[in-house]
């Protein structure tokens, strides 16, 4: 499966990660609901930033409480959109999922990790759990401009 981001989404995630540095940022990836079994392409349309609610170590951990996910999902009820996944930043660490990320991951969702080094955003990666759900694998992603309606 391939994930497609509009440039606005990449920009928003980068800005969020730089703004919360040296703490981790986190948020929701929103896009058209592809159903329970995603097709070959997943299009992220926009992001909703979340507050990192980890209480102990926000420089190395993020947490989005269930109530917040629930509120976002409720807001999307009746629309064609769904929560497709989550993004978070790794301050001063590479854009690869940690063991902790893997232990807390859910199937189906797309996880985006952004490296922020010294306050500036760096690498960007998208990951999903393997079908056996034991490991994360990078998934191919591209940035495509959104179709702008003609005047």
């Amino acid at each position, binding site marked *: 499966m391939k994930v497609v981001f509009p440039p606005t989404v990449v920009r928003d995630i980068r800005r969020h990660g730089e703004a919360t540095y*040296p*703490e*981790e940022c*986190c948020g929701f990836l929103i896009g058209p609901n592809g*159903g*329970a*079994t995603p097709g070959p392409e997943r299009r992220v349309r926009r992001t909703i930033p979340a507050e990192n609610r*980890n*209480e*102990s*170590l*926000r*420089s*190395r*951990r*993020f*947490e*989005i*409480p*269930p*109530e917040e*996910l*629930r509120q976002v*999902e409720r807001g999307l009820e009746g629309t064609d959109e*769904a*929560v497709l996944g*989550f993004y*978070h930043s*790794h*301050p*001063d*660490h590479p854009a690869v*999922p*940690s*063991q*902790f*990320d893997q232990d*807390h*991951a*859910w*199937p*189906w*969702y797309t*996880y985006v990790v952004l490296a922020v080094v*010294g306050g500036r955003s760096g690498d960007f990666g998208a990951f999903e759990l393997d079908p056996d759900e034991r490991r994360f694998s990078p998934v191919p992603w591209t940035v495509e401009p959104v179709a702008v309606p003609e005047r």
Partner: protein
Amino acid sequence: MVSVQVRLPSPLRSFVGGAAVTDIDGDTVGEVLSRLVDRHRELERHLFGGTGQLRNFVSIYLNDEDIRHLQRESTPVRSGDVVSIVPAIAGGAPAGATPPAGRPAPSELPLADSVETSPPLTGDQLRRYSRHLLLPEVGVRGQRRLRASKVLLVGAGGLGSPAALYLAAAGVGEIGLVDFDRVEASNLQRQVIYGTHDIGRPKLDSARDRLKDLNPDVVVRMHEVHLSSENAMEILRPYDVIVDGTDNFPTRYLVNDAAVLLGKPNVYGSIYRFEGQASVFDARKGPCYRCLYPEPPPPGLVPSCAEGGVLGVLPGIVGTIQATETVKLLLGVGEPLVGRLLLFDALSLRFRELRLRKNPDCVLCGTHPTQTGLIDYPAFCGVPSPATAPEAGAVPEIAPEGLAARLAQEEPPLLVDVRSPSEWEIVHLPGATLIPLAELPDRVTELTHAREVVVYCHKGNRSGRATRLLLDLGFTHVASLRGGIEAYAEKVDPTLPRY
């Protein structure tokens, strides 16, 4: 058995054929979930860990309420209810990683700046705190943070003693103590900061000496005053965390209110006989003491430790829990006891936990607070303040010497001891009748034959209430022994044991 809707998050829908909602029968949330898992076996490993317990990262809502706020999995369901399964999302950078030097994690407490500008730990401090420095959650940064922080202990008694000792040992930079008592022999059974040679000394002097001996780096600020509405804001203001070790309701409400108004966490503890309680009241993040108890109990309903007794080890346990929470708050690590009331029973050696919620109608920290300043706490709690006690003199009293004279005459008054049987066993006056205060209303007929009644207790408080009760019931010749059996032993009969 009723039918409810189970709403699944996107990741789990493929296991139920793609549906967002599925109908399941059951009587409780737990039953619904186990039937769901029976029907769709694949869901089990996502919802339940190896032990059959719900996974940490899964929350279950019944309609709009997290079942952790209800009766958890035994919460009953009704027809048409919606049970939602909601994953919590978490992650982070690799565990072994540390932020590079010079780029500190910002803290929630305003003292972070002073940590950054404070001098590095000295060689002596590195040795003293080495066991802390080994913990990644503390480390040099955390230790400097402790050194830059200020904690106020209200009350240097049973709870304040262990809390002060551990906070000083942990390297908290500044410890304030509010107390105005002197050390008494009866304190030593639990107030471990004091020694036998301290008896008669002001508590704060003794406590300061002990804390400075334990850790000379600690600055001890002594507030040898009665905490009141007039001075509380000023005294609490400089501190980062307030530790409530008070033994009375007016001061407890005062400490709570001042902490809420100043936006400071209040680490609460209380003890009675064999049971203790602890919580962290931080109105910015959770409930305050008033959310839990909007009003104090009527005076006299809850006896103090001086009347009801207390197991000496108990304040040691509760006070060290308060110290633990304080250190966690200062370090910004772990999960604080905010929104949770910890209950401890020493007899069964059990800890229980109650969820506390912020009361939206709380006059102090609710959505529309009506109380914006401190109030008259003795009046709020129905306790006459010593200065203005109008009722204290309203009860007829007899001095110890006067009672001794009356007992020597013919037709002495009937002596009634309103203390507890265990106090009676320690010492009582010859010829007295034991009627504990709580039993007095039911046993008042035992007194009707007496022409004159003198009531006594340990120090004169309970006998004053008993006298008021008897006067209200129509007794005319009734008096309370002023100062209780304690004063009698002091003034009249030094051979009587004192406690």
